[in-house]
C-alpha cells in the first residue's frame, strides 16, 4: 500500500515538473504567435497598415476593430530605429512588443505631448554607444530600449465613429519607421 502511494506521489511531483516546463517552453515552441503571423504580411523595418479585421478572419485575434492599425516589424541588428507618427484627431497610441509578444512599452499621444510621436528604439548596447552630450541636448528625444533585437511596433489610431476610419488611416499613412543612418 505504502509502495503504491509512493509511486503516486512521485507521479504527481513529476507531473508538476512536466506542467511547469511545458508552460515555460510554450513561448519558444509556439508557431502561431503574433510575430510569426505577421512575417508573411510585413517587411522588416518598415511600417505597413494592417487590413481591418473582417468577420471570421483576424490576422491577430481580439484586435479592436474601432482602430486603424499599422505594424513595424523590426530587427535592430543593423542599427537603431526611428519611429515618427503624426497624432490623429482622436486617440493614437504606440505599443512595443518583443519577439515573444510581451508589451514592454506603450505610450499614447497625450503622454507624448506633441503634434507627433517621435521615438528612437535601440538595443541596450546601442543606447550605451549614444554620446552622452547628445543624450542631454536632445532632452525631449524619447529613447526606448528594446529587450530583444527583433519585435513589433503597433501603431493604433482610433476612429471614434466608423465614418472617421479614413481619417484614422490617413493619420497612420503619414507615419514612418526605419533604420537610422549611422551618424
Amino acid at each position, binding site marked *: 500500500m505504502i*509502495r503504491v502511494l509512493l*509511486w*503516486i506521489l*512521485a*507521479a*504527481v*511531483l*513529476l*507531473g*508538476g*515538473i*512536466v*506542467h511547469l516546463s*511545458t*508552460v515555460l517552453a*510554450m*513561448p519558444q515552441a*509556439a508557431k*502561431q*504567435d*503574433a510575430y*510569426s*503571423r505577421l512575417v508573411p504580411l510585413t517587411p522588416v523595418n518598415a511600417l505597413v497598415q494592417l487590413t481591418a479585421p*473582417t*468577420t*471570421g*478572419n*483576424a490576422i*491577430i*485575434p*481580439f*484586435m*479592436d*476593430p*474601432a482602430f486603424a492599425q499599422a505594424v513595424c516589424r523590426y530587427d535592430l541588428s543593423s542599427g537603431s530605429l526611428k519611429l515618427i507618427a503624426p497624432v490623429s484627431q*482622436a*486617440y493614437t*497610441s504606440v*505599443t*512595443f*512588443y518583443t519577439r*515573444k*509578444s*510581451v*508589451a*514592454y*512599452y*506603450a*505610450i*499614447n499621444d*497625450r*503622454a507624448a505631448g506633441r503634434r507627433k510621436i517621435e521615438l528612437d528604439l535601440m538595443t541596450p548596447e546601442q543606447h550605451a554607444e549614444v554620446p552622452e552630450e547628445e543624450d542631454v541636448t536632445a532632452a525631449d528625444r524619447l529613447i526606448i530600449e528594446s*529587450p530583444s533585437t527583433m519585435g513589433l511596433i*503597433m501603431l*493604433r489610431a*482610433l*476612429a*471614434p*465613429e*466608423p465614418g472617421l476610419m479614413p481619417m484614422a488611416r490617413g493619420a497612420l499613412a503619414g507615419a514612418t519607421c526605419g533604420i537610422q543612418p549611422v551618424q
Partner: protein
Amino acid sequence: MRLLFGSCFTFLIAAVLGLGATWFTLTRGVAFGSLSVGAWTAWPKSGSVDIDPYARASIARSGELPTGMGDGVAFYAHTDDQGSNFDGRCTFTISGMTPAARYWTVTLYDPQGRLVANTIDRHGFTSDEIVRDSDGHFSITVAPLARAGNWLPTGGIELFVLVWRLYDTPIGVATRTTKEGPMPAIARKGC
C-alpha cells in the same frame, strides 16, 4: 518487474497530469494578478514586462497582442453577472457606469477572437458613437434580432465574448476596489 511496472505507471500518470494541467490552464486563460469587477476581468499586468508565465504561454499560443499598460486596459466577459454563459441566441443588456477613460470601446467576438458576421456590419461601440439618454446613461442590447437603440448583434452564434477596452485610463495594476472601476452590469433578458 515490479519496478518496471511502477515506473511506467508513474511516467504515464505524470505525463497525463502535467500535459493536462498545461492544456487546461492555457485554454482557460489562467493568469495571475487579475482585476475582476462584476462579470468583467482584466489582467493589467499582461500588458507589461511583469506578465506572468501563464499569460505569456497563453498569448504565444493564441497569437494575441495584449493591450499595453500605457495604452489602456481590456476587460473580458464570458458570462453575465449571474454567471450564465453568453449564448448568442439569448438577449442580454449592458448598462450602468464606466470607469474614467478618455475613450472606451466594447466589441463582440467569437471565443477564438474573430468578429461575428451580421446584417448591419456592427461589431461594437465606441464611447463617442453610443446613443445616451438625456442624463448621459446608456444601455446596450446584445441580441440576435434587431432592437431599438444600441443594438449589438450576436449573429446567433453559440458562444460569444465581450471585451470592454478603456484607453488612457487610471485603471490598472494599482486598482483594487470596484468603486474606482465601476463596470457596466450585464443581465440576461430571455432567450
